[in-house]
């Protein structure tokens, strides 16, 4: 990993120096404290939500996005993506979703939220847990009830979704200010300092995997945990995948686990007809299942549809989302419960 991360290493050294000087850093025993006389309420400086956590905001190299996102100064493209292959990239990062092992638990969803401090109400990744089929009324059905017999022709399936880090990303091509780009190693990223928050790329993604980040007022999406990757660590979703369904690695390395899985199994990708060249490979995606009438495929969670949509409101009523506590008054009334 060493060579391409030279700049990250220098940010590292800088951080070390700053931390050495810093007086407020605690040692082995971490000591948050309540204010004098504080009875209840949030503790200042100790928030779990990254964007409100001042301790994550120190000037030690983290808040320099351009350096964070491309420490090795890898070449980037805003179009003509076919050229990338010719530049002999060292890596081509990709994700394999082995659906034989996805247990639908949502650990990756929370890992992503936690690692990347994604605001409430939007997701960089989600896992659909889907029901299909019917209890069919049949004489020879195995389910015996007082009202007759049924055949349980039903199934559950899991479908983890995330940014596909496409070979030909329409989102990148659509950006009017070239804030979003594709890195030589395959990552599709956004320069948040350059992003004007116009929302065109959000609409351009055929997978619905981009969203508007209300906190930073920019477009946002999965980065494949570029900040981890550049320090030699796997993406948080893969690290915390309970079933080990998410396998991350380098498709240019034939000995990598992803290369082996893609070579040994029949894989599917989402919306290949859109010509985007998605780089998330699914093993064991059952075609028959997904050909079911979508009206009859019941998605249990990650929330079946946007909670601010009328479809959700019809199903669940007006969703009351967890309160984002504002600094001074976490107890202000946040509106009615259904």
């Amino acid at each position, binding site marked *: 990993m060493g060579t391409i991360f030279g700049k990250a290493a220098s940010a*590292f050294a800088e951080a070390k120096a700053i931390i050495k000087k810093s007086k*407020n850093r605690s040692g082995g*025993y*971490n000591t948050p404290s309540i204010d004098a006389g504080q*009875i*209840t309420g*949030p503790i200042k400086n*100790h928030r779990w939500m990254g*964007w409100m956590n001042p*301790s994550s905001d*120190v000037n*030690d190299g983290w808040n320099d*996005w351009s350096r964070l996102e491309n420490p090795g100064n890898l070449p980037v493209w805003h179009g003509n993506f076919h050229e990338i292959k010719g530049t002999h990239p060292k890596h081509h990062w990709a994700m394999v979703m082995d659906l034989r092992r996805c*247990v639908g*638990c949502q650990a990756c969803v*929370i890992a992503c939220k*936690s*690692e*990347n*401090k994604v605001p409430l109400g939007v997701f960089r990744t989600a896992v*659909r*847990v889907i*029901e299909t*089929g019917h209890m069919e009324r049949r004489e020879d059905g*195995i*389910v015996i009830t*007082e009202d007759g017999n049924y055949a349980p022709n039903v199934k*559950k399936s899991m479908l983890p*979704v995330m940014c596909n880090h496409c070979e030909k990303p329409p989102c990148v091509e659509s950006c009017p200010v070239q804030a979003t780009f594709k890195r030589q190693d395959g990552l599709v990223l956004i320069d948040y300092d350059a992003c004007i*928050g116009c929302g065109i790329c959000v*609409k351009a993604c055929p997978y*619905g995997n981009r969203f*508007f980040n209300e906190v930073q007022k920019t477009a*946002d999406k999965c980065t494949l*945990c570029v*900040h981890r990757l550049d320090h*030699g660590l*796997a993406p948080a979703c893969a690290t*915390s*995948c*309970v079933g080990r369904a998410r396998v991350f690695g380098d498709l240019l390395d034939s*000995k990598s686990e992803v290369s082996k899985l893609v070579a040994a199994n029949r894989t*599917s990708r989402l*919306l*290949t007809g859109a010509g985007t060249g998605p780089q998330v490979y699914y093993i064991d*995606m059952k*075609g028959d299942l*997904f050909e079911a009438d*979508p009206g009859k495929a019941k*998605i249990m*969670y*990650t*929330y079946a549809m*946007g*909670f601010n949509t009328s479809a959700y409101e*019809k199903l669940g009523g007006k969703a009351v*989302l967890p*309160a984002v506590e504002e600094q001074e008054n976490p107890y202000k009334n946040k*509106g009615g419960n*259904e």
Partner: protein
Amino acid sequence: MANVDRRDFLKGCTFGAGLIVAGGGLNQMELPKILSGDVKSSYPGRVENWPGVNVKLSVCKQCHGDCGLMARVFNGTIVKLDGNPYDIQTTQPPLKYESSYKDAIVHVGGTFNTSKPYTDGAHSLCPRGQAGIQSAYDPYRVYVPLKRKGPRGSGTFQVISYEQLIDEVVNGGYLFKDVPGEETRFVEGFRQLWNNGQNRFVPADPDHPDFGPKTNQFVATWGRAEGGQANLIARFANALGSVNAIPHVSVCELSHHVATMATYDGNAMLKPDLPNSEFVLLFGANYYEANFPMQTLARRSAAATASGKCRMVFIDPRGGNQIAHADYIPVKPDGDGAFAMGMLRWIVENKKYDENYLENPNNDAAQKNGEPSFSNASHLVVAEEPNKDYAKFMKAGEQAYVVDKASGKYMPASSSEKGELWPTGFLSLKPVTANGVSCLTSMQMLWKELSSHSMEEYEKEAGISRNVLVDLAREFTSHGKKAVADLYRGPVKHTNGYYNARAILMLNVVVGNVDWQGGYIAGGGAANAMGGKYDMTKWPGFVAPKGVKISREGSFYEKTSEYKKKSAAGASPFPAKRPWFPFGFGVWQEEWAGIYFQYPYPAKIFFMTMGNPAWSNPGHGGANDESLGWIRMAKDLNKVPLYINSDIVISESAKYADYIIPDATYLEGWGTLGSLPTYATSRIGVRQPVIEPMTAKTAEGKPVCMENFLIDVARRLGLPGFGKNAFLEGGGLNEREDFFLKLVANISYDKGLLKNEDGKFVKQGPVPDAAREEMFTVEEYIKRYPDALRPEEWKKVAYVMARGGRFEGQDVAYMPSGGPQWVTHRWGAKKIAVQMYNEKIAGTHNAITGERFNGATMLEPIRDMKGNLIYKKYSKSEYPLMLSTYKLPFHSKSRTMHDPWLVELLPGNFIEISEVDAKKLDIGDGDRVKVSSPTYKKGMTARARIRLTLRPGVITFSQAFGRWLAGSGAWYINGKKYEGDPARNSGTHLNPLMLVDESIAANDGWSVSLTDPIGGSMNYYDTPVKIEKV
């Protein structure tokens, strides 16, 4: 989605998958109000190897799975929780225990370096576990002691100092004289109850001294206090002279434990050895949603089915997530027992049981025959009434007897090589006369029950075609020892839960799969935290507490003076005032009933920590409704004169407390968490504070928390085992670390763990000394508590703390190759019989009806404690549907609604109804419906959702929702109104609908949930309901 319309997607997708993406995609397209307001960056968390990031290995507590965790702390704030890479529960294969802590914090496996064989770098925590950060930083936490200001249930509190708290609860007095109605109420404190230690020797009830002394009137209970914590609470109760330190198990899955212990004595839970199993039946156990722990079982289960070597069959009224990779049999609620008995009937009738195994009458014979255990299948049971030994084993001393297969002679089981299962012929129920007494073998006792019902009856009761039972029985008996039937809450939360569980366990008994690779395994045990270097079970001035628990658990009614007196007077000893539960532990509902009925004695001081029966309990809790039993009990000043609650927030149950002790969260606390049978090796996790408790400090500078509160009350009273000279080895117990550090020392010096030395398994001895860079884990403790340990112990303690516990290597899980295909740590090493027939159960009575229990298993209808048939009592035509419930993979019960990341995954739950019933009743997705039950006629209303994978005739809902306090609702402190987050009170919680037992209600109608008379479980799944559109 605007540029391409939906039809275009459909053309393009590989497998039509676009339908799902388009129909239910992320839909996150609420578009921006461009560049308004102040802009912040939402930076990712600092990575593990970032300078200044402090990585601590501890243990989760978001469920009872207790997975090892790895916390990243930056600038004193927890930024991320992952799994501990040393722990088999989170990492597979786990990092070698001797690997350096430095390797652990950047564990990536073989993702980047492919020059070596691939190893998996994932070290996972489930969603609940990862979101635990948000519980620590819950903005609705309470940091200071609170005292009730208004009447119980008013939700009004005032802040008091810790010192005032200790003074008041110790000294008692007119503590609530300012509360209307309590002006003259004298509250007894700990001092009065303790009475300088004298009350340990004064009976609470002079007529029944065997019920124990007055000090038993202190009742301590917990919803979740684990290894170490529970031991400290029990130490306090016991030192005070009370036997009442009671966990919550009956709300969980007690009957499963009781049935398992009745079959495999000494073990409360076994699990399939999933990496080697070929065929697994899961009865009401969904490894993909919740279990011990979800993540390890789900991972191993998915790996097993993905490999193509293992078939799983999921038997449950609701299609759990498991059916993504398992066959689904939608059994009738409560049909599990009939299902298993139907299978067993076919297995016995067709002689498909493992005869070679079952005929082994003793351990030596079994070993000779290549079996790691033996059963009592051939042992003789006295079958003639009214012989005084009726239903017990024919015995001389401790020696059981068999009919020897070779000689046909009656002889001690220990002398026989093979015991006859059918002394009077295959499938004959004719008794054999042994020693002049009519006897049946255990096998015959079982067959007597199995053969008393036809396959048609089993089909009807299971609600599943008998062809399925036969097919599964055939397959179950064609995988040798690599077939397992496992179970969890589904079959056992019924009034016949014990028998259902026994029937399922019997499937394992007849193939003799215990201890085999791929079979049913008991786990690898754990290093002993309670002894070794420090004896934590005794102390100077130790007096063993005496008497029966207020829940009557762990005691036989037949042995009480009450039973004997009634019998001596010529009266029937039955009914007792309340049922007794000699086999149960943590029988919560009868703890409440004991308090309410003041039987066997009245309670005086009630202490509860991290417990929330007001919200969680079925039938007698579950809603903000003061007609519910638990809330009525908690409000009653006579029955609960002093109620102390400890929690991190003002919970639904804490609302009724007199005092609230602000507690530390699990990320600020300690514990020692033993292993699970999910894997075959020894394991113990050490929970240590990842951050210091945020609660207020006492005048001595200690953080306020549950443990320090008990320690300080004990010091004030002068209880033995606390304060100065608290340990047999010397030293004081003045703060929680004085206790917990000793547990870690015991763990680090444990000598029992094994290691693999060139294929030979030898004992490890104590852990090595920690490397210098690992000493930071104890530096602060050495400074603060220099006398907590002996000087030489710190380095070993640091070694364990740096790794978050003590874990045996996976290379000793199975016997070395060439040897038998067994696990290394075996249940059979106890050399006791697997109980096909259990004489202790058979010798015990329902204390209400006087009915004897069955030593084998039986098909038992749903009944109340007096024996009335429930479905006769409550008409099915009026209440045609059955109520069920389940857990989501991202919630446990009463603690995870603290965590917004989990709430946003599903902002509210639903009343879930099958497609078939929804059509019949014209109910659509999102319709508002009312559900009511015979004992909660007012019903509850919520939105409906149609489920495709639900058995017709069943409605269900997921747990965790519907919180009216605990950071939701409103409460008052020092006259100020606080309002919580309404997002925590979304959805529905139908627990109040669950049936209460009206047959043994108090005269005023007070009662608790229906109960399994043997297993003690609260009933969750026997409630008939009706549903109406509103």
